[in-house]
């Protein structure tokens, strides 16, 4: 048995992105002793990559905005299978969370009268996104980090949690290893908050950082918690397609928000050809009106490039499939054209979209102020995740909370841009608050040493296998897994392909048992990859099973064999959980929405 170090905190937060940091700050303010573990260094979590902004109905730019409009936009975007309680709380509380960030040192872009500026984004009726150029995520994470380090929170950087410890249906702690040194740690905690982010790394083309292996979902699943909405994976319409080594890297929606347009290889603005019914009344029917909208004309309607992401992504796929794509298998995204409208457009673009300008110049040798970009869909965001209570963020396991991208509910079948960063703040805070409250009244339950030993023994197995016989490489399996998910459980799905995917996944699971790694435990990426792989297999299977079950198309989930929405499915969430004979998918009817929320949706239609 390998030695380990034992550590105790009232509240253990797993993850230091926006959600984890916000949770930790709140739990600490409630008087709890708080530990935060994260796989990277502080301030480097995936949240740092967010670009466009944080959605909050502050009404600084357009006084017509308020929480009710934000609520109904979020529900419409999610195709009404969202957790309506979360959508309500989110819309109501986001503005206060932004003001708080400013008081903690964030410096957002300003309006002419010195307040926080807001910008347009897809699916939001009014200019709503609080931002700093196109580096909003950095502003958010640095603000939370620099505030959080002075709050008596303990940070454990470059630690990976490999299992939760449970006693019956209650979480009592977690086992982690230090990535740097390879030593083990047992955290005892009264409450645990999962804030581990997304799953994008299980697809070949993704905008996500290496951390997004879905660990939190797998940890929760193994501990007996329920996952929900796993079929809803967001493919962002615009990722880079060339050069190959950066394929998938995000091209922010703000490019379209600032007037960028999508064209096929015949120069046609193809988004005008197919505007979904639910958005027709809000969408411009000519190019001139769309342009005016992006320049702040409040009487103009949005250009069709700014309808929801699921729809734009599918239109792009259609153009490419039907032979109207760009040379490297994408379509054209053109911001350079605004030179026809704006004097000194090159300077304007560089000021509004500095990171995009840099990204294309440095990585593709392309000057976006002069020529169009080539873009195509990229795996971007996980709407599904750990099923939680809308108010407290508690999961179906006692003492186990979840917030941010790893939790499910707020976004339903499709997330609106900007609604994730606000989600992290609103529900990060709530998870921290309720976790601290839970910890206050809960008793300590000692971790079961047999569980601890089993977890550690399992974690070091890959070394023993390598010594024993010729083993499979974790990198090879991972590459094949990502390829499989990309091809068979991607933007356009069929029952047949997903059945095939499940067979493939079963084979990977067998091979994963034979994965071997060499070297020692000291900063060993091969070993880390072999452990991540277990999580990715669970999450991929959950996505696949849920997607196979939902026999309709809704939001980000598109089935070629069931291309239409089905009213029956509009009242159902799918829940995935561990069963004796493997993974179970069950239907859960949506709770009835209160009358006043229904009325808001009706009113805003």
């Amino acid at each position, binding site marked *: 048995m390998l030695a380990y170090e034992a550590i105790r905190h009232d509240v253990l937060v797993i993850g230091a992105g926006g959600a984890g940091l916000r949770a930790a700050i709140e739990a600490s303010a409630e008087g709890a002793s708080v530990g935060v573990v994260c796989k*990277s*260094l*502080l*301030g*480097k*979590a*995936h949240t*740092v*990559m967010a670009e466009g902004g944080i959605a909050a109905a502050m009404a600084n730019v357009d006084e017509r905005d308020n929480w009710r409009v934000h609520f109904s936009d979020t529900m419409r975007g999610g195709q009404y299978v969202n957790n309506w309680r979360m959508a309500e709380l989110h819309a109501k509380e986001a503005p206060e969370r932004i*003001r708080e960030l*400013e*008081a*903690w*040192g964030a*410096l957002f*872009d*300003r309006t002419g009268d*010195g*307040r926080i500026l807001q910008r347009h984004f897809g699916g939001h009726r009014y200019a709503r996104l609080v931002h*700093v*150029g196109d*580096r909003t*995520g*950095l502003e958010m994470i*640095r603000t939370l980090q*620099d*505030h959080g*380090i*002075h709050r008596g929170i303990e940070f454990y*950087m470059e630690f990976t949690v490999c299992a939760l410890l449970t006693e019956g249906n209650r979480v009592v702690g977690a086992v982690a290893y230090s990535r*740097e040194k390879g030593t083990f740690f047992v955290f005892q905690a009264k409450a645990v908050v999962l804030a581990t982010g997304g799953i994008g790394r299980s697809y070949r083309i993704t905008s996500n*950082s*290496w*951390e997004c292996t879905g660990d939190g979902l797998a940890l929760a699943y193994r501990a007996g918690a329920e996952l929900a909405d796993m079929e809803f994976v967001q493919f962002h319409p615009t990722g880079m397609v*060339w*050069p*190959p*080594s*950066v394929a998938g*890297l*995000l091209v922010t929606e703000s490019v379209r928000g600032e007037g960028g347009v999508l064209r096929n290889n015949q120069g046609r603005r193809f988004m005008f050809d197919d505007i979904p019914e639910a958005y027709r009344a809000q969408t411009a029917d000519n190019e001139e009106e769309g342009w005016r909208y992006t320049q702040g004309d409040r009487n103009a309607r949005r250009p069709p490039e700014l309808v929801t992401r699921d729809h734009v992504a599918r239109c792009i796929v259609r153009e490419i499939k039907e032979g109207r794509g760009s040379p490297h298998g994408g379509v054209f995204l053109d911001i350079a054209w605004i030179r026809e409208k704006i004097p000194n457009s090159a300077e304007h673009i560089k000021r509004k979209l500095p*990171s995009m300008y*840099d*990204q294309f110049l*440095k*990585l*593709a040798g392309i000057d976006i102020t002069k020529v169009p970009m080539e873009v195509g869909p990229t795996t971007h965001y996980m709407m599904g995740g750990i099923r939680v209570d809308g108010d407290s963020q508690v999961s179906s396991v006692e003492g186990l909370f979840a917030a941010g991208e790893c939790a499910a509910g707020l976004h339903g079948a499709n997330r609106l841009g900007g609604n994730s960063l606000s989600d992290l703040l609103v529900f990060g805070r709530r998870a921290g608050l309720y976790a601290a409250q839970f910890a206050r009244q809960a008793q300590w339950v000692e971790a079961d040493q047999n569980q601890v030993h089993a977890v550690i023994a399992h974690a070091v197995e890959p070394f023993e296998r390598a010594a024993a016989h010729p083993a499979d*490489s*974790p*990198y090879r399996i991972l*590459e094949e897994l990502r390829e499989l998910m990309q091809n068979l459980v991607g933007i356009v799905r069929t029952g047949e392909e997903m059945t095939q995917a499940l067979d493939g996944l079963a084979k990977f699971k067998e091979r994963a048992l034979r994965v071997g*790694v*060499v*070297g020692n435990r*000291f*900063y*060993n*990426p*091969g070993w880390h*990859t072999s452990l991540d792989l277990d999580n990715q297999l669970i999450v991929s299977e959950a996505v696949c099973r849920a997607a196979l079950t939902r026999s309709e198309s809704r939001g980000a989930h598109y089935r070629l064999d069931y291309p239409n929405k089905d009213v029956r499915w509009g009242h159902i969430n799918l829940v995935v959980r561990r069963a004796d004979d493997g993974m179970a998918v069950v239907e859960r009817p949506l709770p009835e929405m209160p009358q006043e929320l229904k009325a808001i949706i009706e009113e805003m239609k």
Partner: protein
Amino acid sequence: MIPSTATFLIWRGDAQGGAFQEYRIGISEGMVVLDAVHRIQAEQDNTLAVRWNCKAGKCGSCAAEVNGRPRLMCMTRLGDLALDRPVTLEPMRTFPLLRDLVTDVSWNFRTKLAIQPLRTRPADAPDGTWRMMQRDVDRPQEFRKCIECFLCQDVCHVLRDHRLFDRYIGPRLLVYTAQLEMNPIDAADRLGDLKDLHGIGYCNITKCCTTVCPEEIKITDNAIIPLKERLVDAFYDPLTRLARALGLRG
């Protein structure tokens, strides 16, 4: 056209010592140095340690010395390097080595804690918010672009050669301090600390830090020099000295 293979000399080792090891790999168009390291890791040696996160120049994790120059590996294209000879990859030399290309940068995180955090002045509006004009936040926004890659710390001779880690906070943390000092809602006074504890006097304006900053922050001109000027005003100008002695803020 770039050649289809390239040779890399990569530092392998730990705190006890190490050596360059040679790797030859196939390369393709548009690859960056980090892609090459990943390819070696996946195909030739699973244990090659490298720290990275976003692969988009946004997190500042992948700092290293490429052909002796401090760079982000994910933003350095192979096409921009001379590939007719081996490309050398080394960890940042200013910080203790953990393993291969990964260094222990925890000193930066510990040292930041010693800098006084934001302390807000009273709000401007009844709803508890402040009014700030864009022109007033432009400068601190420049500093807030910092991705904490610590490349500037790596090249600063005060840290790299003279190893004054206990007396000087280095360019990154001066940028951090400048950002706080120039935040329009901040009311704290860090000038005394800058002079006495944080060693701003050790900076002799060589500007090496500015040349390596991937975010193109004008570290010396816009952050360090203005802080030095504020110090001069505060401590060597008789009137402001008097005001300080009386507890008033200049």
